[in-house]
Every structure is written in structure tokens, then in C-alpha cells.
């Protein structure tokens, strides 16, 4: 039994020791302990170093608001996380805990020299210095500042754990399972509502866990709690512990993070480490209780200085005495009970120092009965002890004057500055707060969300009040949801209600300008820092916060915001409500990235769309490239081939005989209806009315700003039916745009639009042998020049499969695109592949497709155009139906800048030295000019072309269409390349190869 553990006391299992290490040293705690309670039981208060001054620190709290006792926690490879709150991390067998922000050791930390120079490191000191010499900021000052800052070290290995997420709908979500939350859940559940009750702690009960002395309905608090839990379960309440409500989002969407494995000795194989819940609740009850405020005085951060309520929790919940000889310092009644409990548990309380000049007689009697010395109207002006408090200096205060101090030896100083409601989640709702002068604190007022606050969260102290209010709020939400609603009444004995006063810095006889009186422990913000910020003109509390970093530590101001406000308001000479609080931001407590990412990791980060032929390509050893969400076969290397060799072979063989290409990713939209042709006339630049059934046409889609959005071949399958193809990446956008115009602008048109991208597998055959290969499989269409010329389409049968056959070419060779029902795609592909062997068929990927089309000057929207290119810029004025009264983009095309002569226009480029240009390379007319140069365009596409016998390129060049034959220059880092402007067609300009 560790020296500070009290046999049989608390909710820990005294028969179940748990072994863990802290900074390499082995310790034993009990099942149910947190790291903090277990270390305290072993007499260890020193658990960390502060951010700026590296001051030794121990736990000041017992819950999630802890700012000091942050540790690194590890469970084998990959499972390390910094900045874990020792007060929340349950111990488990084998847990490796380590202290942070120290070198070489927690007890002897070199960084503590900062503490000696603390007067220099005042609020905002870094804004005032480190500016000379200029180059030193980057090379000297910033690296030093960065190395000094930060708390723990980041993980360095990939996380082997997995994370989950789930949605949940309920009638009532109750956040916080203390007395108020329990009562609210009970009242709502009793009406048959679906209730979810969550609590961030390992077990429910809240305050009740720290106050076993209370009697509820004639039973000891813990017995009552156990029975109440059973009752709630019987009513079907879903109770979730280790579950933090992290954020309150629009319309009662609450994010929860549930921690599932960090407390377990042995990791279960299939359990996620954490689970994010998105709860949509019809009503929310916030019953998060209140947080105890520290007192602000010189030396209030020494290990052993702790909140009185925390000491009570360590004692009653964990059976740990935080000291043998504590001193109590308080401005609130509640700390007196901590003194009584500790004295009753065997400690010798050295003194109760109360800042008030009068307290309830009953408290004085209780103290007297226990022989505890009491000092009213006293303050503490200092503490001493290097790594643990060993004495406090106590001074009388008379009429505001501080008298001579006297040292009292102690091993713990337990303080209470009163309580402040936990308003974080309420604040997320953009709820308004109202100042309560009696309690000198902000209370929740108005919120736009359907939520109520119960218990200490709205300033009602004590178990009886919390139970009463919880039940009342439970009834209120039940009624709001149409139920009758009833509030259970409870009889509570031994309740410890109390009152107190709110303090700024405690009165002192010392120079307040030199006091180390901490307000934000973790960020080392002192009262003098706050006053300095105000002195320097920071009048808004947001400025004070940002200038001093008060409230920006990992406790998110839970410990510091109200004290900071009181001091800043005093410095400003304004009442606190006029100064106001800073906004609390989600999450309530720091939440792991893994929980937010959830399932979306690795291959599940985003779905990967694959065609029916993808597996075949993979078997063939294809290299893939991501295109939007699709993965497409990029090229098919044979043994020993690199990309260039593979692409050259694929190109050669396609032009020599036949190549097969998976075009299934092309977007496909079925446009059907009596007004289909009218719709097409209005959407696309081209005329469609005269396009015969069984014919297809290249279509160009603009935005109403006149710039090219998409393109594709469109077949007229019937008078009232078009088979529209789009780019791979543009499919969803194009359909949305079509729907938008159809539904919103032309609702009178009788047209239906259906995405058929995933309904068809599309296989392209190109090459002089394409018709020869395909013809034997086709029934219903004769593949001759006369019967099925270029730009024809038909419904037919291919290899026994129903098909839509297009005679189109994106290569300049005889080309077909066969669409068959998607699941048949691979069968058709393999059939053609087999039959193609006699022709030496080659499978090609997207890279070869790009080369072949560039050789013919066919553009790729998004590569040769970039959202600022008109059809005329792209040399495709022929695709614009000038006679049409209107189409999307027609008016946009007439805007002054779009008809100007100096636009960048798509041309071909041939380098004079025969080198291949780099895609993206910039073009100038005058290579000799100085930087910054006048840039007149850029290379959009560039490939080595076997067919052209040289590298070819497409480029956008200012006024390019009028500059045929002129030389432009491409300045590269090492040299400038001269290139001649040409047309965009490099192979077979007369289209002879398209003919069968």
C-alpha cells in the first residue's frame, strides 16, 4: 500500500494493483486510478514543466480541465501520444508514462533558466525584440524560440490503431452524468423518450463520486447512484462513459468522442481506439456542472498547490490523501469541506485560511471540533519549496491592508476561488451569456439551439439543487417533445451547499509587479502579464487573450478565463460584463485526429472508382494514374520498359495495326424527351437539329461566361434521344449544370437527364485494323465506309452483347467505341483481345491516348484549356452555331475582352532544335528581355511523336492564330528554346487514315 493511499477508501479496487512506469520508474496503482491519482498515492506531485518558464508543476485539478499534469503516454510501437492529461488517463498494466518539456530530467531542467529571467519574458516580449539584425530572426531567434516552445513531442510512427464513427438519433441527449444529468435523463426517459446520457469520465456520477457523505432518498449517495443507474438502464437510456461531447454544431448536432481502448490492459483485436459519434438530438440537456477557480497569488503553481475540490476528489473517489499536512486557502465555503474530509482521513490540516472576514458559524464549529486552526481575513502572499510546496506565507488583511506574514509549514496547499459554470458547449451554440452579480460569474442566457442547461451549469450549487433542476429540465424537454412530463423529487441529506466571493489577485504586501501569480498555468500567464497587456492598450478581452496567450493553453481557458477576465476588467476599470468573455471553441477537450478522420484512412481516404476492365489491366501489370476519383491505366509496360518505351510502343502499334483502350471512365449522360433536341441546342454551342439519327457530332459546352467547360462526342440514337459523353472529370459537373438549366431556366422543356457513366463499359478500338478486328463480332451494322461512316452511331450486337457502337476517333485512325452493359465489359474486352492477337493488338493507357490525340490536334479540356479559353481561342469556332439565337455562353462570348485580338490562342509548336518542350513551360516573343518578362503563353501539351518523327507541342500563344510560321521562345533555366508556331495537326492533316 502506498503511503498516501487510505485503505478501503474510494472507488478504486484495493485488491487489484496495476503496474505502470513514469519516466522509467515503476509504480503501482489500483484499478480505477488515473495516472495522477496513482502518482499522488505514491507521493509524487511533480509531473511536468510549464510552457515558458519551465517551472515544476503538479496536478492542480482532478479532471479534464487539468493544465499542468500533461504526460506522454505509450503502448509499444506506434502507440505514443503527447500532452495526455494525467488526470484523465486511467492506468493500465504496462502503461509507459513520461513527463514533458524538460531536459535533462524533470527534476533538473535546464530550461528553468527562463524562470530566472522571467521579468524579461513578460507578455508579448517577443513582439518587441529579436528584430536585429534582421537575418537573425530566421537563422537564430526563431529556431531557439521554436525549440523552447511546444510541450510534448509529436509521434514519429504511423498509428497502428483504427478509428470508427457512427450516427445516432435520439430524443434527448444529456451531456454530463452528475446529479443534474442523471435526474434529467430519468425524467425524460420516464416519459418513454429515447435518451442518451454521456459522460467524459470512466464512470457516471459526477460530483456524487467525490461526495459519498451525501444521503439521497435515505440511501448513501453511492448506493443511490448504483440503483439509479439500474433504473436508467431499465428505462432504455443509452449510457456512454469515457465519452466527451466535443462540439455543438448546427441544429442540435453534437459530436461525441468515445474512448474505447486507452484504459484497457490488453488491446482487443477488433476494437477501434476511439469512435466519433454524430448525434442528432431533438433536445439537448447540458449538465456539465461547474469548474472550480484557482486563486491567484505569488507561488500558486508550486507542486502541491491544488484545487480543494480536486483534493476532495482524490480523497473520496481514489482514496488518496494529497498531503499529510495541508493548508486550505479559500474564498468559498466548499474548500472547508475538503479540510474536514482530509482531517477525518488522517491528515493534519495546518490551517484554513479564508479571505473573507466572516463565514458560517456551522463551518467554524466543524473546524473547531476537529482542532483545525482557522484564519479569517487572511491571505497567502508566497509559497516555498523547490519541487513541492513546503510552506506558505500567510498574512492578515485588515481594511485592505496586508499585515506581516507568517510561514506555515505544509506539504499541500488546497485552494478554492469559487466555482464557474462550464459554458463551453453552450458557447458553441453561439448562446448569449448573462452576468450574475451574486455569483460573480457568467450564466447561460439565450441560445438559438433547442437546448437547456441544468444544475451547476446555471449556477445552482449543491446536490439537492442539481437533482431538482435536472429533474425539472428533464420534464421541460419532455413537455417540449409533447409528453406530459413529471419531475421526481429527491430528499438529500448532508448536502454541502455554500457560497463565496470572487477574487482578483489576492492581496499582498509584496511588489505586485514582480509576483509570479499565475492565471493560466500551462502558458505561464501571470496577473502582471494581464495588467501589462491592458497598460499597453489591449482593451478588448480578445486582445488581452491574444497578447498574453491567457486561455489558449490545452485546457482552453477552463482554469484561466474567469480569473483572467476579473483581473483584466479591474485593470480596465470596467465591470466584468462590459469586458466579456472570449469565445470558447470546439472541441471541449483536445480530440485525436484519428477520431475525426475515422474510417477515411489509407485506401478509404476517398473511394477509388475502377472500371470493369481495371482488374485486367492490373493483371497485365499496368501502371495507374489517379484522375479525379478514378484510377486509370496509364501505360502497360512490358519487361524492362520504362514509361517512354512503353508509350512509344503502344503508339506505334496502334497506328500500325490496332490498339484497345478502356474509355469507360468517360462521363455519359442520356438526354431523352420530346424537347431533347431543343435542350441540346441551348446547352451546347453546336447545332443539333439537323443531326440525323445514327449520326454523332463533337459537342462543346461553355459556361455562360463564354469559356469552355467540357466537350465530348454526342450521338443521336433516336429523334428524341442523345447519348452525350463528357470528360472523365467533368461528368458530375456537366450533369449538374444541365439539370440546373433544365429545372430552373427551362422547366417547360420536356426532357429527362440520366447519368449512365456506370451503366456502360466503353472500349475503344483504334488503328487501321480496327474495323477488320471488330466487324466479325458485330451484328446489325455493316462496318463499311458507306454503311457506317466516320461519326456514325448505332444500336447493335457485338459479340452477342447488346451494344451502342460509335465510329469515332480520338487518334486519327479508324476508330470505334463500343458501349456494352457495364458488367459485360471485361468479357467483351477479352474477346476482342483474343481476336486481336492475330493483328498484334496492343492495349494502351491514358498516356498513349494523350499522345495520339495531340498528334491530331484534338484538345483535352482542362489541359489545353484552363477555364479562360473560348472556342475561338481553341481554334474551334467551327463548333459554334453562330446562327443559333442563343446557347449557354453565347452572350458571354460577346463580352469586350473575349473578342479582343490579343487573346491567347491554341497553336502547334515545333522546336527548332528538335528538343521536346516541357509542359507548362512559358513562352515569350522577346527572349532578351529582362525579368520580369512579358509572358505571352505556355505549352499545354508536349510529347515525343514517332508518327511525326519529332517532338510536338500544343500551346496557348497570344494572338497565335495570326502568327503562323513565326518563331517564339521558351526560356528554360539553362537555355532558351526557339520554336515555330504551326497548326495543331501534326499527323494526317487530310484525315485519310480515318477511312476504311
Amino acid at each position, binding site marked *: 500500500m502506498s503511503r498516501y493511499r487510505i485503505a478501503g477508501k474510494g472507488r478504486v479496487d484495493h485488491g487489484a494493483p496495476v503496474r505502470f512506469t513514469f519516466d522509467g520508474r515503476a509504480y503501482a496503482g489500483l484499478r480505477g486510478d488515473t495516472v495522477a491519482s496513482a502518482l499522488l498515492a505514491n507521493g509524487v506531485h511533480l509531473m511536468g514543466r510549464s510552457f515558458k518558464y519551465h517551472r515544476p508543476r503538479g496536478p492542480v485539478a482532478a479532471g479534464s480541465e487539468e493544465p499542468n499534469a500533461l504526460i506522454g503516454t505509450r503502448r509499444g510501437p506506434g502507440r505514443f501520444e503527447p500532452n495526455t492529461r494525467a488526470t484523465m488517463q486511467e492506468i493500465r498494466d504496462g502503461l509507459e508514462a513520461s513527463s514533458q518539456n524538460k531536459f535533462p530530467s524533470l527534476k533538473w531542467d535546464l530550461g528553468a533558466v527562463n524562470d530566472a529571467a522571467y521579468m524579461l519574458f513578460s507578455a508579448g516580449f517577443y513582439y518587441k525584440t529579436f528584430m536585429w539584425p534582421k537575418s537573425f530572426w530566421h537563422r537564430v531567434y526563431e529556431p531557439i524560440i521554436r525549440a523552447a516552445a511546444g510541450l510534448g513531442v509529436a509521434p514519429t510512427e504511423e*498509428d497502428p490503431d483504427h478509428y470508427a464513427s457512427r450516427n445516432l438519433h435520439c430524443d434527448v441527449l444529456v451531456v454530463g452524468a452528475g446529479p443534474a444529468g442523471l435526474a434529467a435523463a430519468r425524467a425524460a426517459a420516464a416519459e418513454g423518450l429515447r435518451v442518451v446520457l454521456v459522460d467524459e469520465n470512466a464512470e457516471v456520477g459526477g460530483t456524487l463520486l467525490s461526495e459519498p457523505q451525501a444521503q439521497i432518498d435515505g440511501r448513501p449517495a453511492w448506493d443511490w447512484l448504483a440503483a439509479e443507474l439500474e433504473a436508467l438502464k431499465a428505462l432504455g437510456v443509452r449510457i456512454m462513459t469515457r465519452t466527451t461531447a466535443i462540439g455543438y454544431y448546427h441544429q442540435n448536432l453534437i459530436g461525441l468522442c468515445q474512448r474505447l481502448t486507452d484504459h484497457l490492459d490488453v488491446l482487443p483485436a477488433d476494437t477501434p481506439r476511439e469512435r466519433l459519434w454524430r448525434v442528432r438530438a431533438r433536445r439537448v440537456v447540458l449538465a456539465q456542472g461547474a469548474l472550480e477557480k484557482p486563486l491567484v497569488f505569488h507561488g500558486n503553481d508550486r507542486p502541491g498547490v491544488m484545487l480543494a475540490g480536486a483534493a476532495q476528489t482524490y480523497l473520496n473517489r481514489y482514496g488518496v490523501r494529497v498531503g499529510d499536512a495541508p493548508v486550505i486557502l479559500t474564498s468559498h465555503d466548499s474548500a472547508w469541506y475538503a479540510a474536514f474530509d482530509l482531517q477525518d482521513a488522517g491528515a493534519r490540516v495546518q490551517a484554513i485560511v479564508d479571505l473573507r472576514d466572516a463565514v458560517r458559524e456551522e463551518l467554524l464549529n466543524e473546524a473547531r471540533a476537529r482542532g483545525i486552526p482557522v484564519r479569517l481575513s487572511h491571505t497567502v502572499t508566497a509559497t516555498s519549496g523547490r519541487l513541492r510546496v513546503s510552506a506558505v506565507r500567510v498574512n492578515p488583511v485588515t481594511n485592505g491592508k496586508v499585515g506581516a506574514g507568517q510561514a506555515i509549514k505544509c506539504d499541500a496547499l488546497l485552494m478554492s476561488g469559487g466555482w464557474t459554470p462550464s459554458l463551453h458547449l453552450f458557447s458553441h451554440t453561439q448562446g448569449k451569456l448573462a452576468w450574475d452579480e451574486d455569483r460573480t460569474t457568467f450564466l447561460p442566457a439565450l441560445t438559438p439551439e433547442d437546448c437547456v442547461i441544468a444544475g451547476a451549469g446555471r449556477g445552482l450549487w449543491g446536490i439537492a439543487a442539481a437533482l431538482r433542476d435536472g429533474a425539472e429540465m428533464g420534464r421541460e424537454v419532455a413537455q417540449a417533445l409533447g409528453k406530459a412530463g413529471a419531475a421526481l423529487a429527491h430528499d438529500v441529506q448532508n448536502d454541502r451547499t455554500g457560497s463565496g466571493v470572487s477574487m482578483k489577485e489576492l492581496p499582498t504586501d509584496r511588489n505586485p509587479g514582480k509576483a509570479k501569480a499565475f492565471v493560466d498555468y500551462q502558458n505561464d500567464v501571470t496577473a502582471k502579464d494581464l495588467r501589462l497587456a491592458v497598460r499597453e492598450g489591449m482593451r478588448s478581452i480578445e486582445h488581452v487573450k491574444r497578447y498574453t496567450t491567457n486561455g489558449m493553453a490545452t485546457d482552453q481557458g477552463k482554469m484561466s478565463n474567469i480569473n483572467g477576465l476579473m483581473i483584466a476588467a479591474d485593470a480596465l476599470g470596467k465591470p466584468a460584463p462590459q469586458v466579456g468573455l472570449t469565445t470558447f471553441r470546439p*472541441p471541449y477537450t483536445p480530440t485525436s485526429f484519428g477520431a475525426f478522420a475515422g474510417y477515411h484512412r489509407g485506401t478509404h481516404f476517398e473511394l477509388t472508382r475502377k472500371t470493369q476492365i481495371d482488374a485486367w489491366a492490373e493483371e497485365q501489370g499496368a501502371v495507374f494514374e489517379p484522375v479525379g476519383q478514378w484510377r486509370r491505366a496509364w501505360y502497360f509496360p512490358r519487361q524492362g520498359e520504362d514509361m517512354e518505351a512503353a508509350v512509344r510502343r503502344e503508339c506505334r502499334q496502334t497506328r500500325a495495326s490496332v490498339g484497345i483502350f478502356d474509355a469507360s471512365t468517360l462521363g455519359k449522360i442520356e438526354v431523352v424527351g420530346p424537347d431533347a433536341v431543343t435542350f441540346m441546342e441551348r446547352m451546347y454551342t453546336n447545332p443539333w437539329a439537323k443531326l440525323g439519327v445514327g449520326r454523332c457530332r463533337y459537342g462543346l459546352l461553355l459556361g455562360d461566361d463564354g469559356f469552355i467547360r467540357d466537350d465530348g462526342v454526342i450521338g443521336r440514337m433516336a429523334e428524341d434521344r442523345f447519348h452525350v459523353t463528357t470528360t472523365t472529370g467533368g461528368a458530375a459537373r456537366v450533369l449538374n449544370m444541365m439539370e440546373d438549366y433544365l429545372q430552373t431556366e427551362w422547366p417547360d422543356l420536356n426532357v429527362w437527364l440520366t447519368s449512365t457513366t456506370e451503366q456502360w463499359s466503353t472500349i475503344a478500338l483504334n488503328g487501321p485494323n480496327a474495323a477488320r478486328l471488330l466487324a466479325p463480332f458485330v451484328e446489325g451494322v455493316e462496318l463499311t465506309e458507306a454503311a457506317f461512316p466516320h461519326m456514325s452511331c448505332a444500336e447493335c450486337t457485338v459479340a452477342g452483347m447488346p451494344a451502342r457502337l460509335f465510329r469515332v476517333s480520338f487518334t486519327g485512325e479508324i476508330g470505334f467505341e463500343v458501349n456494352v452493359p457495364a458488367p459485360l465489359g471485361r468479357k467483351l474486352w477479352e474477346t476482342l483481345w483474343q481476336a486481336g492477337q492475330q493483328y498484334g493488338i496492343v492495349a494502351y493507357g491514358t498516356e498513349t491516348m494523350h499522345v495520339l490525340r495531340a498528334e491530331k490536334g484534338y484538345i483535352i479540356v482542362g489541359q489545353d484549356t484552363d477555364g479562360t479559353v473560348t472556342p475561338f481561342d481553341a481554334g474551334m469556332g467551327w463548333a459554334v452555331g453562330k446562327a443559333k439565337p442563343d446557347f449557354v455562353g453565347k452572350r458571354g462570348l460577346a463580352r469586350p475582352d473575349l473578342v479582343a485580338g490579343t487573346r491567347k490562342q491554341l497553336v502547334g509548336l515545333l522546336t527548332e532544335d528538335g528538343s521536346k518542350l516541357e509542359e507548362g513551360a512559358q513562352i515569350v516573343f522577346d527572349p532578351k528581355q529582362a525579368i520580369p518578362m512579358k509572358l505571352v503563353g505556355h505549352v499545354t501539351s508536349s510529347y515525343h511523336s514517332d508518327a511525326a518523327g519529332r517532338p510536338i507541342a500544343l500551346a496557348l500563344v497570344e494572338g497565335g492564330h495570326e502568327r503562323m510560321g513565326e518563331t517564339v521562345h521558351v526560356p528554360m533555366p539553362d537555355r532558351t528554346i526557339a520554336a515555330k508556331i504551326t497548326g495543331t495537326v501534326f499527323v494526317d492533316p487530310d484525315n485519310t487514315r480515318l477511312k476504311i
Partner: protein
Amino acid sequence: MTRFNAFSLLKNALGGHRNWTEQWPDSQPRAEYDVVIVGAGGHGLGAAYYLASQHGITNVAVIDKGWLGGGNTGRNTTIIRSNYLYDESARLYDHAVDLWENLSQELNYNVMYSRRGVLMLAHNVHDVQSFKRHIHANRLNGVDNRWLTVQEAKEYCPPLNISPNARYPVMGAALQERAGTARHDAVAWGYARGAAARGVDIIQNCPVTAIRRNADGSVAGVETAKGFIRAKKVAVSAAGHTSVVMQTAGVRLPLESYPLQALVSEPVKPCFPCVVMSNAVHAYISQSDKGELVIGSGTDQYTSYSQRGGLPLIEHTIAAITEVFPIFNRMRMLRKWGGIVDVTPDRSAILGKTPVPNLYVNCGWGTGGFKATPGAAHVFAWTIAKDEPHPINAPFTLERFRSGRLIDEAAAAAVAH
């Protein structure tokens, strides 16, 4: 104004810091100013500073509905870079970077401009083409930006996941070494202090309710919560609220305001040396001097003034970060917040004169306004002082939306094909 340096810091430290004076006074409005600037963010305060320091115009008020620097200046992820594609953008942002480099010295306020490099990751062939286009354009515009192979990118940013089996594998990166970050609040404070020292009034918590015009149509002044303030010139620099303010002068703008969220992790020791942006997965990350990982998100889909933003976007943003940096999976999010960004159709700013004589506007920065702060403020001051645009901001007119001469960086980034 006490000069800030190591000696004054030491001297004051010895005196218990009791002798520091306010960095700017809490001014009350006077009846009339030569120039009233609406919006006390970095852009507005900077414009006031340059009006006073470069143009000798000191009878200036900067008015804000809240506290200075409380809008997007204090809510962004502090990324500074200038590797934009178009000459117009590159010149404007590079002008800003030039000023950033000396801003601490110029203002005698350490804004912590940290030249740590911005790495933009290419995750597909289209990214590669697009980044190379940027790199070549930047080089010839005198803007630094260079291509890194996957290996080089990994060396520059060791936490980067370069596994070829990643969902979106890294195929290379564009690096601008001169780019980096700065301390956002300090920018507003430094300009405020510099402007105030030169006689500029900074009036906080004073909402401007309307811009009033004279009978001849020109600007007369502004109606505020503290009464009417006469002004010879009015300049609006109110970010997400610009539409609302300008509408009172009868000027309707091509602007929409969207919520933009950002977040930080708990602070850790230095583990991330540079800034990384990935457009393909929508992730932006750096580590602050305090040790927090600073992470930017995209905008929500709907317009809003709520500064709130939804949970799904945060989930996606963090998934994107852990996709590129899987070792951060066990880091924790400390705090997330929202801002309101004003977005134009071409995602470039509007910076110049308006159809109303003596009324000027600086808006439409979308998600990229912080990096431009000194440059934009500088040329905005020029425009206000001379009633004509500086050559650098001349292309950023309101008229371009009529003529179609857009500066479309977003379109230039284009789409996957």
C-alpha cells in the same frame, strides 16, 4: 511611442514593466477626416499606416465594428506565398512578400515573418502540369518557385508520406523558399501602433451603418453607431462584410461570403519545418512558433456570416492531413474556429476605385488575404491618396467582371480531365 528593442525591454523589465505605454490610444471619432477607412484588419490598418507614412495623409480614421484585427486577420492560417500563376497576381503577392521581409523593422514590431518555405504537393499528372506552369511563369516573373522530386520533397519535409500506395501518392512538389508564415495578430497591432503614432485615429466597437453620398454622387462620409463622420474619401476594407457596407453606397459587388474554418493541434516540439499545401486533398498545414500544428480547411458550401462552420468539413480536413502525414494521427485537435471570407467569381481581389467618386474598395481576397496584407495595403493607400490605381493593382478592377478580363487563378488551376 517607445521604441521596441532589447534595451527598452531590459530597461522596462528592471522597472517591473510599469512604464510601457499604450501601443495605440482608444480614439473617439472626430467630426471630419480626410480619409475614413472601414475595417480595422491588417489591410485597413496597413492602408492607414501607408497613407500616413508614405503620402503624408494623417487625418485618417480606421473604424471597426469590433476590435481591431478581430476579423480574418486574426483567424487565418498565416500562410504567405507569392507563387501565383498570372503576372498580375504574382506581382501583387510578390510585392507583398518584399514588404513582409522588412515589415518587422519597418514597423518596429516583430511580426515574426518566418521564411520557412511553402511546399505545394502534386498528386496527379494534372497537378504536375499545372505546378510546372506556375514554376516557369514564376521564374520569368522573378518569383522564386522550384520543382522538387518526391525524394527532395521528403527531404524538405520529413513527416511527408511518399508511399506510392497512398490513395493520392505524391508525385512531386513546387517549393517557394521565400514563402512562409507570420504572426497574424502582430501584423494588425504593428500597423495600428505605427499608424496611431503618426496621428491616425483607430476607432473600435463602432459599426458603420451606412456610407452617405453628396448630391453630386460623391462620398460624403459614414454613418456610424457613434454618429455621422464626414470624410473626403472613404475606403472600405471590410472583408466578409464588404457587400453589406458597399450596398449602402449603392454599389453592388460580385461578392459572396462563405464560412472558412481552421484549427490547431495541441502544441508539440518542432516536428514540421515548413508549410505544406495540397489542393488535391484540400489540406494546408504548418507549425506555429508556439508548437501548434496550424491546419486550414476549405469553405463550407453555403454563404454565411455565422463564423461557425460544420463538422463534416473538419472531419474531411483532418482525414486529408492524416492521409499526407499519417504520423499525426494520434495528435489532438485543440481548437477550431471560423471566419467569413469574401469570394469573387474569379477568386482574385477587387482593389481600387468604385463607380462612386472618392469611394474605394479592397475586398474579394477569399481565402488568401493575409499573405497580401502589406502589398495590398500599400497599393490601396496609393490608390486612395492619388485617386488612381498603382500599376500593381491596376488590373484588379471592378470593371473586369463586365469586360471578361478576369484574373482567374482558380480556373487556371483548372480541373482534372
